[in-house]
């Protein structure tokens, strides 16, 4: 039976179990400063397993760097207590200064703060530094294991779901955009902007998930490269789709747009079809669609416009439409590249050959 829990509840349970584990290890190992492991294990529990690994690596690295720097500085200035106090205050200053922008740098200064605070309270030595580093590593390992075993939230598991959502949003916004072109009203610009923001939010989440997934596949070079490639492809897909949305209001205002409306409708259907086909291939679903080539349509539109142009002023007027068509073409090419990357296993040979021919021709 699969238990469905919300993310805060899962994280809460993970943190509670991390505390218990750290306390047990501390109790039986007889380590002198086991409380540092308890603190680290809770602080490193993050939204996904990948995030926890990333934070753990940063924490351990910066604890070593900050601890060594702080200890070196302390030995150099320990004869002057005011200087130790100044270093303590400086560490606090830099923690607050970097807290919102860089976890990495703030952890460095947190460790410096620990060095100078202990120096003020009871004194600091290399034995304490060693204990701090070992306990931090134990805490980091506990956090990684807990995040991986107890109600794990893996970015990879979410990536499929988020990607499906992203594809759905892309399809909806594309259909809507072309529908609005047919009978444009000014309020549609605001509606498209809202959808655009929603898409931006989904895209940011998708990027975060990809980033976390990279840490989950830290030791697999192939997956690392694959994720990088996929990430970049989606960045471009997103870019060209949003460019289509941005240029749509300008295209809608072209007075003679009705002249090419039937072709635009057909272009919308082609793009929708190819987007759905890409989704089917990526999600390894049963393929029910076949690839449609929008290039003849694009040419048809261009010819029709060129045949009806009467002045150079009109030419600059249609410039927006050329941009719009260019974005559609690039969007379409990217879908083709995405299919290329996933085609070998799923798509049948005939469709692949046809698509490859088309790609070469274009």
């Amino acid at each position, binding site marked *: 039976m699969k238990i469905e829990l919300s993310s805060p509840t899962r994280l809460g349970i993970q943190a*509670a179990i991390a505390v218990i584990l750290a306390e047990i290890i501390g109790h039986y190992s007889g380590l002198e400063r086991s409380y540092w492991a308890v603190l680290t294990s809770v602080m490193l529990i993050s939204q996904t397993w990948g995030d926890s690994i990333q934070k753990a690596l940063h924490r351990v690295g910066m604890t070593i760097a900050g601890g060594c720097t702080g200890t070196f500085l302390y030995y150099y200035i320990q004869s002057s207590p005011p200087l130790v106090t100044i270093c303590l205050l400086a560490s606090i200053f830099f923690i607050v200064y970097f807290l919102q922008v860089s976890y990495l740098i703030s952890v460095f200064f947190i460790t410096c703060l620990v060095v100078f605070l202990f120096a003020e309270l009871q004194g600091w030595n290399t034995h304490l530094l060693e204990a701090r580093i070992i306990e931090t590593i134990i805490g980091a390992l506990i956090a990684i294991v807990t995040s991986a075993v107890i109600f794990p939230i893996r970015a990879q598991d979410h990536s499929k779901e988020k990607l499906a959502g992203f594809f759905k949003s892309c399809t909806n916004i594309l259909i809507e955009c072309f529908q609005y072109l047919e009978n444009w009203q000014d309020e549609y610009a605001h509606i498209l*902007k809202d959808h655009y923001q929603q898409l931006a939010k989904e895209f940011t989440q998708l990027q975060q998930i990809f980033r976390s997934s990279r840490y989950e596949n830290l030791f697999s070079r192939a997956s690392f490269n694959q994720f990088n490639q996929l990430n970049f492809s989606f960045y471009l897909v997103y870019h060209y789709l949003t460019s289509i949305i941005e240029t749509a209001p300008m295209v809608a205002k072209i007075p003679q747009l009705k002249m090419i409306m039937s072709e635009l409708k057909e272009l919308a259907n082609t793009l929708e079809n190819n987007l759905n086909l890409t989704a089917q291939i990526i999600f390894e679903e049963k393929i029910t669609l076949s690839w449609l080539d929008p290039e003849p349509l694009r040419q048809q539109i261009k010819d029709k416009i060129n045949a009806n142009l009467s002045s150079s002023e009109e030419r*600059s007027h249609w410039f927006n439409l050329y941009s719009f068509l260019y974005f559609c073409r690039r969007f379409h090419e990217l879908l083709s590249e995405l299919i290329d990357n996933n085609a070998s296993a799923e798509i049948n040979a005939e469709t692949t050959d046809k698509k490859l021919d088309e790609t070469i021709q274009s």
Partner: protein
Amino acid sequence: MRAFYNKLLLSDHGFLRLKQALKTLLVLCLSIAALYQQPLMVKVSACMVTGFGMQCIVGTEQRSQLLSSILAFISLTLCYALGMLSKHIDWMPVIILTIGAFFSFYIQRIGNGYLFTGLFSWSMIFVGTIFPTNSFLAIGQNILGCIISSGIALIINFLIWPRDPKKIFLNNLENYLLISQECIQRLEKSFSRITLQDNAKFLQEEGYRLRQSILLNQTIIEQIDQYQKDHINHPLRQVFAQQFSLGKAISMLLESSDQLQVYKREIPPAIKKTIAQLLRYFLVQIQNRQLLENQQIIVFPHLDSKIAEEHLNELKTLICHKNIKHDYFIYLVNLHLGFRYLLTSLLTMENAS
């Protein structure tokens, strides 16, 4: 010195993080001064409560910020007291720490902004369990110290440089425009010279800074969405949408100009000059934060005709041409429109307020 100042200004426009760090230091110094005669442990715990509490402000309006601040200070002090008291019973610290750890994350159900409050409150339980404070008198002294320092923190927090998300947003936008300006300046320079410079490192750094700047404003917009009822019509949302578009245009322009490096020798000087002119045109607009009188894209047909005039024979030149005409050209249009829309929405917002 000037270069350092500029770098600092670019990374923290409006010096908001600097102000927050200075405010925290001031509160700590005042707390230590107010508790001068108290034992060292009282001073340390009071400083911890204030230091943590200063970072737990949530909300976009002053009232909600004050409320969340008070709640954070109460939670931190109570948790510290709980940690200290738990030491009197065997195994109680472990139980309290375990339950506390659960609730420190569970609190996110109220809103993601409360993550810091939850984690810092748990940290205070933890500090309470490890500090050598055992007698009830010492516990009382510690709690009193925390209350005094919390009071000081509240006063300083809302009297000196109060935190205004709208101001942060606009300051960040200003910073963002400065980065954009730097980017375009660099691109313009690389086109106005005979050969293009190697921009890889610059592009990487500037692209990162642009994204960071956008992400910071996105956080503020998400806060507005979370805490304000009429968030859909919030003017900052419209401005943010435009900022996002412009950021995207600049990023693509940077990446595309990196690709152009491959063909740098093949780009005809006349085209380089025209692109540099175009970029200068944008630069003047961004520097003056205003649109030039002629808002039509008259320079684009000019570039188009310049490209048409060139005699193209070699395949490599043709490819380079295709890149400029189809990619770079469109990115420039995007940049133009992005800036135009951003400025228009900013002006609309200013007129409305």
